[in-house]
């Protein structure tokens, strides 16, 4: 299972990619494997909405279950991936690429330093499975 280096990871199995103060958010390959076939992604935010850490910004559903999506950082939503509306299978196919979910303009991107890197996330997954 791949956890790309350079991304930050949350214990809820999301990844965050930092580019200046722009933070792109998606879910990890481990989350995808646990969920199985993704059938619905509901991103319940729009550009301009303000999120705080731990606030849900949507849900992701597989055949069997539903999971909440949590903001990994405080900030303002600047982009929402509309492609996932009609093509939820992108999450299965390309979780770190085409299946990015939202871009948040972070109030303080440095706060992401507290999240896990690829190595500690790998350990976290091993402990969880």
């Amino acid at each position, binding site marked *: 299972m791949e956890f790309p280096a350079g991304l930050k990871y949350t214990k809820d199995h999301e990844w965050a990619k930092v580019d200046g103060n722009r933070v792109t958010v998606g879910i990890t390959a481990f989350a995808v494997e646990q969920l*199985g*076939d993704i*059938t*619905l992604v*509901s991103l319940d935010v729009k550009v301009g909405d303000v999120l705080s850490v731990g606030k849900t910004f949507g*849900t992701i*559903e*597989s*055949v*069997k279950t*539903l999971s909440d999506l949590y903001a990994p950082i405080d900030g303002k939503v600047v982009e929402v991936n509309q492609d996932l*509306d009609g093509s939820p299978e992108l999450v299965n196919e390309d979780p770190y690429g085409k299946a990015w979910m939202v871009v948040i303009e972070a109030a303080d991107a440095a706060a992401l330093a507290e999240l896990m890197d690829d190595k500690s996330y790998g350990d976290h997954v091993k402990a969880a499975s």
Partner: protein
Amino acid sequence: MTEAAPRKTSLHARHVAAKGRMVPFAGWEMPIQYTGIVDEHQAVRTAAGLFDVSHMGELEMKGEHAAAVVDYLVTNDASKLVDGQAMYTACCNEQGTILDDLIVYRAAQDRWLIVCNASNHAKIAAHFEKAAKDHCDFADRSDETALIALQGPKAFDILDKAGADAAKLRDLPSFRFRDAVVGNVRCTVARTGYTGEDGVEIFCAWNDAPALWDQLMELGAPLGVKPAGLGARDTLRLEARLSLYGNDIDETTNPIEAGLGWVVKLDKAMFVGKDALAAIKAAPLARKLVGFEVEGRGIARHGYPLRDVDGNEVGVCTSGSPGPTVGKNIGLGYVPTAMATIGTKLLVDCRGKNIEAVVVKTPFYKRS
């Protein structure tokens, strides 16, 4: 209360080797999926799937009065069965609500097999044992009996390759069963299932199940057989509108409102729940279990409230998921009888979002 460690079927190592994801289910550790729920679902609809359902309970009733006792405990008419015939039935309490749904097999007038849900095993075993007392012999055969379901349009093509006797199972009519040899395993084969597809359910000795499983997997490989888990079992049965105990039916629901009136035979001999069910049938029904399709963006799930178009809560969703074959998000739920008509618009309260749905004819899927 500490929970006992989940039990393992004799096929546990096979599931792990096939990368099955094992989850606790009704006191057992069972595979929810191997390659993926949709993939396994499609395999069963287009080729074949192999399910381990050894967690289910198998109860035996024997003796001169076994037939009468079994018939007294179930709502369907067991007295109409001939040797080698099985039937689906509800098993109710005196209030006419559902203790379990069962398949009852008549091996002989004095020898019966009852298959119950794993989640109800202890309750139903006690219920049958109590009724049997002083009238017939009761034995719980669950620990020594494995059960494998082979389901799908290629099921009998696979059995064709499993020996001369297995090849003749194609002639077994629906809801009939007989002893057979499949591969090199002695078993009892019933033409029943829980998927909406043709196929069989195969009982064998607990320790013979791995050999039977391996042979069916190997013989079936060129025909596309796949191991299938509880997840696919659920989507398959939902498309076929087969009830799931604990979801669609339980001790708060009666068979009439659940759409199982066809297994309640009020004209047969006395049975547990008869008076209550006669009264329920004589009065107008307050609510009915209906099938619906979700028209908006959302997936209905067990326990979600159902609302009328004005937003008033009118019922509850009992089962819901994407239907991989029907290509829609589907569900079952109880609604007031006035709203049970095909075409009635509903709202499914998906965690605070009201998503449009419409009552449709069931089953959602019927094999051609």
